[in-house]
């Protein structure tokens, strides 16, 4: 399966989804003008991955900032990860936040209560 790699910009995060090397990562800022066109390919990739997932997958989120429209798309990604987890993909979500970033910590806590996927919060 072809990997999806998106270079970060000042308004969109770095995205790496690589089945072969087992690297799944989202990091940086997210405030694109059109969340659907940015996150559309991500959701599509996860849909394809769901058909034949790895035995397990650690998905890392290291977001420094995201706007409200992105927060909805992140939840959609988590819903997809939940489907993959339920299909036997053994997903773990690793939510990283900077130690003094209360809002990012809280966002992680909120998300962890919304999806049925092992969810680890860690301060860095």
């Amino acid at each position: 399966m072809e990997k999806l790699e998106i270079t970060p910009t000042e308004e969109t995060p770095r995205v790496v989804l690589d089945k072969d090397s087992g690297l799944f990562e989202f990091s940086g800022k997210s405030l694109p003008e059109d969340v659907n066109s940015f996150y559309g390919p991500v959701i599509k990739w996860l849909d394809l991955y769901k058909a034949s997932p790895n035995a397990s997958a650690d998905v890392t989120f290291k977001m420094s900032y995201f706007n409200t429209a992105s927060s909805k798309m992140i939840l959609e990604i988590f819903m997809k990860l939940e489907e993959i987890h339920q299909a036997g993909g053994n997903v773990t979500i690793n939510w990283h936040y900077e130690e003094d970033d209360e809002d990012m910590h809280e966002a992680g806590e909120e998300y962890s209560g919304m999806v049925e996927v092992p969810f680890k919060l860690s301060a860095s």
Partner: protein
Amino acid sequence: MNLKKMQMETTLKASASYMEFVMDFYKRMKEYDISLVYEGEITQEITLAFTSMAERNMTLIDEDGSVKKKVYHVMVECLQNICKHADMKDSHDPSISSKTGMFIVGKNVDEYFVTSGNLVTNDKIEWMKEILNKINSLDQEGIKQLFKETLKNGSISDKGGAGLGFIDIAKKTGNKLEYHFQHIDDQHSFFLLKSKVTRKI
């Protein structure tokens, strides 16, 4: 006095009163410690430029990190609200998609204030008031609940919004949303929203 001289004096007088206006405007800006005032088209590029400018200004005065993040956050939501939702007057041309509005960032010793203004059609006022009043009636726990419910049950609109902007501003700032609708004509009103971010002293 010849005609030419008279014309010149009129011009000078007009220019003097304009200068007075500018000086007055400048004084008023200083009074409210306004670092940004803008009226015009609001685009994604402008959103990025304004937010990075504000970040730089706050870094220069060693503003607290969490205050900086909150101001940044509020600015993005307000500017993107205008990008997505501002209505236009006298424009029935669907090819004109640019959105205009007013945007002000100022501060005093206690807080930053981010004020946005844009035209809305009068038919929207009722539900906007409803949601704003609902948010203002809730305590922080209630706002968090409302945010979670809207995040879970809402969907991305055709304008690309999640319907979370106002709720999120109240959630992040912990302050009430001050707003005002100024009647313009039968179809339009000017919507003003003032968000406050409390500074850490």
